[in-house]
């Protein structure tokens, strides 16, 4: 992964990596508190805040009413007056309930006030389909927030990223939305015990390769690595890049890769139309048009609400096979 990685001696599931980041950050900085629906007594429905109430007490780990606007405003008012809140919105779908606070208030307060405000606020939420939770508990809406100046957006792809990006997000003096994915919470990987930051705005080359670039976000990073393995049998040497931070986006790393491989595809779990991949593809074409041997491909979910029934949901979700098929299609068209 990166140079700071020690021998893979401490495998931790994604969910524990997030919980560990919260606990270590709260030990470090008394201005940090966490508030959200069922984050205290229950430890969050996903388990990401388990143990925090016992260690830090109800003053710093706060169960809220089911009132997303109120919760988000609480975070903003506290951040603007010297605290460093972590606000948990249980499912990313619920962000719709507090969009005014996020888009019109949190994102803009600094600019509207001529730069005077500092809003060190972290919003943690959970995206992703694949658990038969249907259309209102399964969406990946990260593109909405990447479109709003004043916000930063990160989307971890595994346990190591989950901890390191959370640390960077909470320590950042801007509003940062951390989009975790519920279907990879059990994924295990090496996670250093100490606090470490993954810098925001820096992409990571997950798998180096020479003749195709796949730029993938969140859960699709793992799927893309599997796709790369499938394609290796076709004699393709695929490079997989995880932007880690979607806003600000690390154009430089991606463009350098495409200049080397001459072909690219972007993959995300969100609906393809208007997804963040559209922006990534546009940037690649703007910056590396003369180096491209084929149009930039895109893999994402079809333009439909997330269905409930397992076979339909399976049809809906992008995966390694779909990514590999799209890569082959792009290469076939090329000739």
């Amino acid at each position, binding site marked *: 992964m990166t140079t700071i990685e020690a021998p893979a001696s401490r495998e931790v599931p994604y969910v524990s990596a997030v919980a560990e980041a919260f606990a270590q950050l709260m030990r470090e900085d008394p201005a940090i508190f966490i508030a959200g629906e069922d984050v205290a007594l229950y430890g969050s429905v996903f388990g990401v805040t388990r143990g925090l109430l016992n260690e830090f007490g109800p003053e710093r780990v706060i169960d809220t009413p089911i009132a997303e606007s109120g919760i988000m405003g609480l975070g903003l008012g506290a951040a*603007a007056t010297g605290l460093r809140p972590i606000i948990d919105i249980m499912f990313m779908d619920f962000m719709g309930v507090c969009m005014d606070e996020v888009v019109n208030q949190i994102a803009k307060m600094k600019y509207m006030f001529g730069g005077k405000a500092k809003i060190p606020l972290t919003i943690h939420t959970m995206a992703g389909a694949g658990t038969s939770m249907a259309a209102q508990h399964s969406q990946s809406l990260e593109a909405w927030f990447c479109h709003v100046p004043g916000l930063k957006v990160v989307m971890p792809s595994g346990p190591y990223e989950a901890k390191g990006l959370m640390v*960077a997000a909470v320590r950042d003096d801007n509003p940062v939305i951390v989009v975790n994915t519920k279907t990879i919470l059990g994924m295990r990987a090496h996670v250093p015990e100490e606090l470490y930051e993954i810098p925001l705005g820096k992409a990571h080359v997950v798998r180096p390769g020479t003749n195709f670039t796949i730029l993938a976000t969140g859960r699709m990073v793992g799927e893309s690595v599997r796709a790369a393995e499938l394609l290796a049998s076709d004699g393709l040497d695929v490079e997989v890049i995880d932007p880690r931070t979607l806003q600000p986006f690390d154009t430089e790393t991606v463009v350098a890769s495409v200049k080397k491989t001459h072909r690219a595809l972007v993959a995300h779990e969100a609906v393809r139309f208007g997804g963040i991949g559209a922006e990534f593809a546009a940037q690649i074409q703007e910056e590396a048009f003369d180096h491209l041997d084929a149009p930039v491909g895109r893999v994402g979910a079809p333009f439909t609400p997330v269905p409930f029934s397992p076979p339909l949901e399976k049809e809906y979700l992008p995966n390694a096979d779909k990514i590999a098929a799209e890569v082959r299609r792009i290469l076939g068209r090329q000739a």
Partner: protein
Amino acid sequence: MTGISTDVLLDIHRRMVRIRTFEEEAGKLMESGKIPGALHLYVGEEAVAAGVMVHLRDTDQITSTHRGHGHLVAKGGDLKRMYAELFGRATGYCKGKGGSMHVSDLDLGMLGANGIVGAGPPIAIGAAFSNKYRGTDDVTCCFFGDGASNEGTFHEAANMAALYKLPVIFICENNGFGEFTRQERHQAIHDIADRAAGYGMPGVVVDGMDALAVYESAGEAIARARRGDGPTFLEYKTYRYFDHVGVRGMGVIYREDSEVLEWRQRDPINLMEARLAEQGLLSPEGAAEVHEAALADVREAIAFAEASPFPEPSALMEDIYTLTASAGGGA
């Protein structure tokens, strides 16, 4: 007026006059096209801002509304920087990036006028939470109108404020209109303070044209919050002399002039001056001096604003992110 010091009485009067003067001059400048955009003027409602704000410290916060100039003037805002902001100049409170609807001064605990109706209450409970968390006895006063009392944000914030016993005071300036829609056409209740009971906090209805009634009711609620006894809902019945936007707005008739005149009979500044005169605390000459001083300050502020430079084009992309270890900014 028993028990209220002369200094406080004169201070309330002075704050009201400064707001009135600020707003009347701003209205003229907007209608003559010198100030760009929209102004929502506070004329008629001065007793509320003045009667509340005289209790507050610089470290106490307020959240304001689109009709926010009066709140900042009463909180001690610098008229020059306020006018410069209305004119969109680089010397303004927000460097010309916010304008009338976002004028703010965090050093005075003023967490912004706001372009979104009902945006203040959730932010106010956050500031109040912060006061409690940091162990101060500062309080947050949340100003909003009758229109905002129908927004879900108010209800979520009221519930949480009472639940967590936060040091916040909900100050509803009921001026009888949500934009152009009369109160009886936007809610089925007459006294909005009735809603307080639903959240487990006291609700009080007060004459918002009477600065002393405002002063006394706000004083009690603020003391209660400072003691750690939780939030209070104060409803001030008041009236907007000018239109929703500007002075005469777009000229559409949605209320009778006679109604405006009727409310002007109980003008908060006249009412205060009559009382002060009755008590021998302020002569007509003394009152005139206060008005003249306010006008001189406002004229000086306008001159400062008009002489100030516009922001450089390069300022467009500044102040979006706070620079930290990681780089900010999009593409």
